[in-house]
């Protein structure tokens, strides 16, 4: 009886986990989609904003995929999807910056040159370069010939920079995202990233020579 019930309970938990994840990703995007600010923005600006919101949501998936925590996408499969989602994240970030550039070139140039009056811009730019660096590290992994622990340390450090930069960037912005759903998404992104870094012992290479 007990053995027969286990898979049933597992299926229910799987279902709940997926529902929770979908809610954490879809609700902030849906709330942003109902923002009154959208009425006063042209399509390019709206798209640029959404690219940023979607990038934030993808940041939640990345650690869960690579850590194999999502039911049904563990191990190699999770890591393969992590690579695809990483590509999507890169595309979303590029669309975000390009769309903002078309909307107001001087504001984006100021941000990229680190002379913007808005404090969140510099965090966004830090995260932007960290996304590029993490993606390059992944794309050239075979050619770099780093050891697994060393590559993981570098990629994890960049991931932390992306997460911290993006969270500060997002929280300080008065934009289309709802304040509560944005804060919850940010907490979840930090928790998931922290969890996978602890779980995979990303810093292991630093401790190798210690007793």
């Amino acid at each position: 009886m007990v053995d027969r019930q286990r898979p049933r309970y597992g299926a229910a938990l799987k279902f709940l986990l997926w529902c929770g994840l979908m809610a954490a990703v879809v609700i902030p995007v849906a709330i942003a989609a109902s923002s009154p600010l959208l009425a006063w923005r042209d399509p390019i600006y709206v798209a640029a904003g959404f690219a940023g919101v979607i990038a934030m949501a993808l940041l939640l998936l990345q650690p869960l995929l690579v850590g194999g925590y999502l039911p049904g996408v563990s191990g190699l499969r999770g890591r393969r999807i992590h690579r695809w989602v990483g590509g999507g994240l890169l595309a979303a970030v590029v669309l975000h910056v390009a769309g903002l550039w078309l909307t107001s070139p001087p504001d984006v140039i100021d941000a990229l040159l680190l002379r913007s009056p808005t404090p969140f811009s510099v965090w966004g730019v830090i995260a932007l370069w960290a996304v590029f660096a993490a993606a390059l590290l992944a794309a050239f992994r075979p050619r770099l010939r780093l050891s697994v622990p060393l590559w993981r340390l570098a990629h994890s450090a960049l991931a932390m920079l992306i997460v911290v930069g993006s969270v500060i960037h997002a929280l300080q912005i008065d934009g289309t995202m709802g304040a509560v759903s944005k804060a919850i998404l940010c907490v979840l992104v930090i928790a998931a990233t922290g969890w996978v870094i602890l779980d995979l012992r990303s810093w292991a290479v630093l401790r190798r020579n210690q007793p």
Partner: protein
Amino acid sequence: MTDLSKTRRAFITTGATVIGAASLSGASGVFRNAYAQSLAPTPTMRGGANNYLPGAPVVERIGGGGFLMTGTVHRAGDGAPLAGRRIQMWAHTTEGHERDVHSHGATLTNEDGIFQLEMPQIVPAFGQAHGHLAYDTEYDDGKFETVFMRPVMSSAKDKTLHVAFVLQPV
């Protein structure tokens, strides 16, 4: 090190007292002139000139109005109010983006150095609900240095914004 920090603290305290005293005397009419001698010019704010379209026309109102931009213009040094100065303003509003020509307009200060211009409601854009104002010497009589301002609203729901200009004579 201890001596240095004591000195610094004493210096900072003295500075604060001077500033405090200056503010007080500035508020009371008796010492007004003495204080006004040191009235510093407003520096241009970072990003203030972004999406500036030079020479916006003087208008009765920008678009449909509903939001009131107010401010003062004084001369640096003696603090005299400056009449007839042309102040240009623009923002992302319910009626358009900052870059849109119809988001821009200008007004002149009255004899007390006060200006006000109605414009559409400013809405948050690029992360903050903010306005842009300019005193551009090219579109005035050239007696003062150009200043660009980028004030941020304390709340996106505010229906007014006040900006103080102190202009440096050329």
